[in-house]
């Protein structure tokens, strides 16, 4: 049977061999990381964004590269998913975007800080993560296409960047709020304008945020939404 000195040799030998193997792989990984992470694109702005990410312990709620806490969304590809306009608006006042929902701390970021954070996420989104986060394989089941989303009014910029983060039109967009293809059959122009201008006033406790916009932008969006059901 095994003696104590043999057991000790097994411990020391095993530890030694696998430590060396680990250090060798570390060395190789370290060499490949600049290529895999596009280190040449690691600008001052990205680094400043990373500092904001750390100084506020964003990882205490969110995950990035799947690492962090599980209380708030994964942010690796957030720029791709939400778009910069939406993020700018959201980071200004997070709770306004999700009234009555799970809260994010209001950090009162300056415009510059918001741009830095977005630059950081944009850089993170381009890192080669071996396929993470994967596209949902059953995604189509959850997102049936209702209409074609055709309209003779061009899709307003505001709708494409902000509204569609939560609402679908023609099967594309978010699924937090209802799809809006047929909304024109349920609401007239005035009702729609009143609702978008101040959702909480019409239906207290609704998840629909009050998005700051000019009267022109509001008209554009209402025109677009009304045209959807007319063209159906």
């Amino acid at each position, binding site marked *: 049977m*095994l003696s*104590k000195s043999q*057991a000790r040799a*097994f*411990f020391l030998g095993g*530890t030694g061999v*696998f*430590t060396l*193997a*680990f250090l060798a*792989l*570390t060395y190789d*990984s*370290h060499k*490949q*990381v600049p290529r*895999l992470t596009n*280190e040449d694109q*690691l600008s001052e702005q990205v680094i400043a964004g*990373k500092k904001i*990410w*750390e*100084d*506020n*312990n*964003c*990882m*205490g*709620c969110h*995950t990035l*590269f*799947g*690492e*962090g*806490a*599980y*209380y*708030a*969304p*994964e942010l690796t590809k957030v720029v791709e998913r939400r778009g910069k306009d939406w993020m700018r608006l959201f980071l200004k006042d997070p709770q306004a975007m*999700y009234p009555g929902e*799970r*809260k994010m*701390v209001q950090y009162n970021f300056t415009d510059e800080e918001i741009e830095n954070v977005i630059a950081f996420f944009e850089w993170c989104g381009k*890192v*080669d*993560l*071996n*396929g*993470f*986060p*994967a596209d*949902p394989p*059953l*995604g189509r*089941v*959850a*997102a049936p296409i209702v209409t074609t989303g055709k309209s003779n009014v061009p899709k307003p910029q505001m709708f494409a960047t902000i509204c569609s983060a939560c609402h679908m039109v023609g099967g594309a967009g*978010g*699924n937090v709020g209802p799809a809006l293809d047929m909304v024109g059959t349920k609401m007239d122009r005035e009702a729609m304008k009143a609702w978008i201008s101040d959702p909480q006033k019409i239906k207290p406790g609704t998840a629909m945020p009050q998005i700051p916009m000019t009267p022109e932008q509001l008209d554009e969006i209402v025109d677009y939404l009304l045209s959807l059901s007319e063209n159906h």
Partner: protein
Amino acid sequence: MKFKTQKIAYWFFASALLLLVLQIVYGFIMGFAHMGYDVLHDLIPFNTARAVHTNLLVVWLLLGFMGSAYYIIPEEADRELAWPKLAWVQLISFLIVGVVAVVCYHLNIWEGRKFLEIPRPLDYLVVANVLLFLANIGWTVWNGKRFTTTSIVLYMGLLAAALLYLPGMISFDNQTLDSFYRWWVVHLWVEGVWELIMGGILCYLLIKLTGVDREIVEKWLYIIVGLTFISGILGTGHHYYYIGVPRYWLIVGGIFSALEPLAFLGMAMYALAMAKKGGRKHPNKTALTWTLGCAIMSFVGAGFLGFAHTLPQVNLWTHGTLVTAMHGHLAFWGAYAMINFAMIAYAMPLMTGRKLWDTSASIWGFWISNIGMVAMTAAFAVAGVSQVVLERRTGIDFLQVQKEIEWHFFGMVLAAALFTVGILLFILNFIRYGRPTDEALGSDPAES
């Protein structure tokens, strides 16, 4: 207890239990937030509660390890602790650092790196503190009347834990490298050198409680910690699948993580075999129950549940979800909380001279806390798997999924309440022991 200076362990254990209670309080804050009752948001936002919860865990476990070392090392080295007053300085300064860090988290002051949140100046204080501890213990071992494998393994574990704290203090502009070296601390601690510490304490307890020959217990200790390192070092790869390092980590991490449960299985079989083999019937059954419970629960929590999501094919979907929290809770409880409880249950009657080891509070404390923790883990598992299916597999929006799983957190909070009752019973028993006294010298039945 054989030496007067072993008594210092009591104060480390008492501080550890106090911080554990505080950790549980912050856990409840998070549990309620997950249920939709984030009522303390303005005072204690989730990221604060989270940082406090995990950091207090680390601090109280380390305090427990230090207390265990202060109890074990003099006995193993067969001499008084080198500098008992220094141990006091070290305890108090460590507590101050911990409290200051917790206060900082409430003021949005931190480093913002998971598990290593403490602000940089405090990092240096931790290093200084741990150096004091290592010097004190090291000097005692070095000038001891005898060298034992148990004390060497325990000391090596503590020393390596201190050294591995350092890579976490290097900062990188590249998030990938930041994450890469952060795991050197976090993974190589909990799935590497902490297991040396755990193995050393377990070995000591088995020698004392079962009466099996030291040579045999220590021989197998080498095999177990050998298996731990062979699987655990390259097992770090399971944190490297999706952070921006080369693809070969999927293979390396996958294979060696699959071996990690074997080390824990070995540990459980080793403890059970020694207990069965032991001729001596030590009267402290509660300590033996915690010791064997620790060996078994660490296999279930750290080994089995870890393996449940470390294969890259599974981890692609579970990475960054509540499934991780499911594994984390039972792993830390089984491996590291329970070894501390075992050591406390063993040392208390010997330091105080009061034989309260098999009171109903101590027995119920064991069962209720364990059943509570298993139920919590089950609730996390249901919530985590639901999240994976709804969010990752079918693409439903994050917040909508979180609403769907709120009820599982209701179950989790109920289970946590049960767990807390168990912990409070253990603490009640701890308080009833009273203070350590010199009159308890020579009280260990294992010494006769």
